[in-house]
């Protein structure tokens, strides 16, 4: 494989199997340097396994990958000198304080004690962790741990950063903080490979997205290209009176020319819409029919809808435990 200098990640046919399950089943990725590349997929799709192979933590069974021109197997040490990983499990030591964690990483990277301390303080301040610096990490909140984990990954600014589900389990406020950090990181020229199960997150941060399912890349493109493939979005309507739902469904189907889904909530319906104009026409049709909505919203397509459109199955159906028969 000839390596392309403008690519931060160049992976070809990566495979990792556990027993009969092929967790990663021939993944190809081309990630241009200086961009945020989203890898979107449900739990068990093979995102983490892929990232671990790229970060030299796991040896691929087949295929190859080059990180900034270095082979992940042959030149693992060189790769480790260029990348950082923030894993799904926050890779910090719970029995140490936040500050000690950062000093530890600084020392391991080769800083002298004084430099490592100085860098730790700088990062604690930048990440809003000064007050918690002397507290044991086991007493940190989820958001604080996550920030500390990211801080530990940038004690030396990496050229490529792997972020594995950086906001899973975080409250919205902490999630926004993490997003700000990622944006700042990219602003400094770091390439980011972001694994996520939230379309919203990939949409917010990523320049390009690869959708991964059952160990394979099933689609890739810009966020808008992907969304275009499933329509502009979904119109959600909640009715004042659940008894009117059947009538509302008929009206909407006529107005939109698409099938309308009834939700588990007895007052709710949803339907794919091509654009906002069609949606407002449909709502006007509802009003004319005398159906009063309690509320409505025009949402982006969810990961589920992207999956439905791309694979014909819902995201939750995929599971690592499912041994896939050769299709």
């Amino acid at each position, binding site marked *: 494989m000839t390596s392309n200098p403008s690519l931060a990640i160049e992976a070809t046919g990566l495979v990792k199997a556990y027993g009969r399950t092929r967790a990663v089943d021939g993944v190809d990725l081309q990630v241009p340097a200086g961009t945020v590349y989203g890898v979107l997929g449900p739990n068990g799709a093979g995102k983490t396994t892929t990232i*671990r192979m790229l970060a*030299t*933590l796991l040896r691929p069974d087949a295929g190859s990958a080059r990180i900034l021109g270095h082979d992940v197997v042959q030149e693992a040490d060189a790769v480790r000198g260029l990348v950082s990983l923030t894993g799904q499990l926050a890779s910090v030591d719970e029995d140490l304080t936040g500050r000690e964690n950062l000093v*530890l990483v600084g020392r391991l990277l080769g800083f002298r004690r004084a430099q490592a301390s100085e860098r730790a303080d700088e990062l604690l*301040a930048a990440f809003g*962790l000064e*007050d918690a610096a002397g507290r044991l990490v086991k007493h940190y909140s989820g*958001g604080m741990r996550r920030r500390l984990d990211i801080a530990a990954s940038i004690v030396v600014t990496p050229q490529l950063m792997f972020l594995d589900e950086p906001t899973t389990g975080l409250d919205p406020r902490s999630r926004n903080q993490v997003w700000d*950090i990622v944006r700042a990181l990219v*602003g400094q020229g770091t390439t980011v490979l972001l694994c996520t199960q939230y379309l919203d997150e990939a949409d917010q941060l990523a320049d390009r997205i690869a959708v991964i399912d059952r160990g394979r890349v099933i689609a890739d493109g810009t966020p808008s290209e992907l969304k275009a493939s499933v329509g502009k979005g979904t119109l959600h309507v909640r009715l004042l009176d659940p008894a009117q739902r059947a009538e509302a469904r008929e009206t909407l189907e006529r107005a939109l020319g698409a099938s309308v889904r009834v939700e588990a909530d007895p007052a709710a319906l949803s339907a794919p819409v091509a654009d906002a104009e069609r949606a407002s026409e449909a709502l006007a049709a509802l009003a004319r029919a005398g159906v009063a909505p309690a509320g409505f919203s025009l949402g982006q397509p969810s990961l589920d809808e992207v999956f439905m459109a791309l694979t014909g199955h819902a995201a939750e159906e995929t599971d690592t435990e499912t041994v896939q028969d050769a299709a």
Partner: protein
Amino acid sequence: MSSAPTTRQQPAPPAEDGLHAALSATARPPRPGPLAAALTFAWRGMLKIKHVPEQLIDVTITPVLFLLMFTYLFGGALAGSTSEYLQFLLPGILVQSVLFTAVYSGVTLNTDVTKGVVDRFRSVPIWSPAPLVGAVLGDCVRYAIASTVVVVLGLIMGYRPEAGIPGVLAAMLLVVVFSSGLAWVFTTVGLLMRSPSAVMNTGFMGLFPLIFLSNVFVEPETLPGWLEWFVGVNPISLLVTAVRGLMDGSVAAGEILLPLAVAAALTAIFAPLTVRLYRGRG
């Protein structure tokens, strides 16, 4: 007490300017050598002793109870008087307490793996066995603390080492060296088991019979022949014999070499095995 709002410990959001300053490329220093990296991990081990002293108490409490119980309950019956039995028992309990502590080397390694910290260490470009070597080095401090507790308690109870302080220090050193060899067995176990408590159970289950079937508590001559034979070849007996000899000044050079050879053999087999398991993880 009821209305303490949940906003009490709101973390400050990352400061915009500080964030950009912190991110502006920090030059990478030259990577640390193998020894420097290992010593950093030894430092980490000592910080853990400071922050989680409970672990040390866990492993010292059993030997302390054994020391008190055997001395005052069985001492008179076994050796004629409690003070005489204490002279016999204390070096054995010293060994027991430090060997138990060695199990924790495996437990902490397993914790690192299950909690994901290991991913951080493995993604840093350092000499890859450094976390293991450093942890075993750092644990020597733990062994030294555990042995000091036992010796001090023994002195309070009336134990008098005939070889004086140098003999006691030499005995403690021997136990610490032996335990760092044994620790590699537990680090191997630590990488094979699924949870820290499984490592702890396996370690204690393995150690308990070996400690009972040794010369820690009784003179082997009082045992049936087949058992006496086993006690004689049990490496823990070899260590206890050497430690007793060092503490009462009657040791022969060969008696010290035997446990050292066992420790060297354990290290030669299990240290590379641990490193292999560690590298091939995931």
